[in-house]
């Protein structure tokens, strides 16, 4: 008589399957599934469109401030926008779109010259009359701020000090140009 396989809960099965992800013996042959031509549900489109709108709104805001910014296509997922601030001085921006006044903790890239811009649509997201609220953080400052907080969700009101803090990006640019001007004047 063979031992009966113990009945696992859904979460236990999930854990087993996740552990097998890199074990090629645990999986059958791949079946190629063609693209679906049926329309996508509205919730998918709204979210994707909002993300695009947020990205282009940030780009628009940077251009209005005279910064040399470009959208990146197909590069690292953490860099949606690059800003050329001077020779050898490039900043990258990751745009985070919020559809509710909350941000849920997720891994972030925190390196020098990398910024996080949170875009939240406080009014009806589908009404273009209302511009979004924008919160600009240096990624390192954001990481340090997060480090002291154990929570998994944060209200956008916690970000109020960083609302429209575009100077975080611009100020660094000025410092860079000033230091270059000083060093070139000295030589």
């Amino acid at each position: 008589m063979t031992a009966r396989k113990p009945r696992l809960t859904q979460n236990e099965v999930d854990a087993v399957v996740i552990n097998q992800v890199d074990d090629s013996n645990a999986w059958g042959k791949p079946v190629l599934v063609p693209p679906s031509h049926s329309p996508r549900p509205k919730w998918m489109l709204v979210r994707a469109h909002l993300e695009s709108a947020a990205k282009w709104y940030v780009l628009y805001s940077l251009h209005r401030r005279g910064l040399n910014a470009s959208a990146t296509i197909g590069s690292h997922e953490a860099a949606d926008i690059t800003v050329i601030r001077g020779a050898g001085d490039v900043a990258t921006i990751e745009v985070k779109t919020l559809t509710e006044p909350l941000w849920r903790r997720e891994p972030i890239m925190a390196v020098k010259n990398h910024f996080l811009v949170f875009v939240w649509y406080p009014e009806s997201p589908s009404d273009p009359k209302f511009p979004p609220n924008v919160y600009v953080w240096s990624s390192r400052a954001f990481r340090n701020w997060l480090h002291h907080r154990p929570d998994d969700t944060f209200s956008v009101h916690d970000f109020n000090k960083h609302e429209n803090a575009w100077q975080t990006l611009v100020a660094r640019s000025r410092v860079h140009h000033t230091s270059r001007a000083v060093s070139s004047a000295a030589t």
Partner: protein
Amino acid sequence: MAEHGRVLQHVVRFRVPNWSKFDASAFEYEFASEKLLAHGIADHEAAQVFWNGFRALKNKGYRDRYQIIGLIDGGRPLKLIVHVRAKTTIRVITGWPL
């Protein structure tokens, strides 16, 4: 005994999706959003994979669990682990960017 075998076969056939006739809009989707977000994947990005075409690999031990490999709209490849429930719901358990 033969009758019992036929019934079992019927049940198994009911639970396994026919990938060659797969229509993404015929399913409902559930997402383990926290696990996906922890790997930098938004729910709608995981869903895009099902509309863009993908490779499905069935788990040998748990035949309603699949590994799905495909692209989001922006071209980023993802690997998802999903649970197909009663041919009507796809529950995305977790996923990783490749």
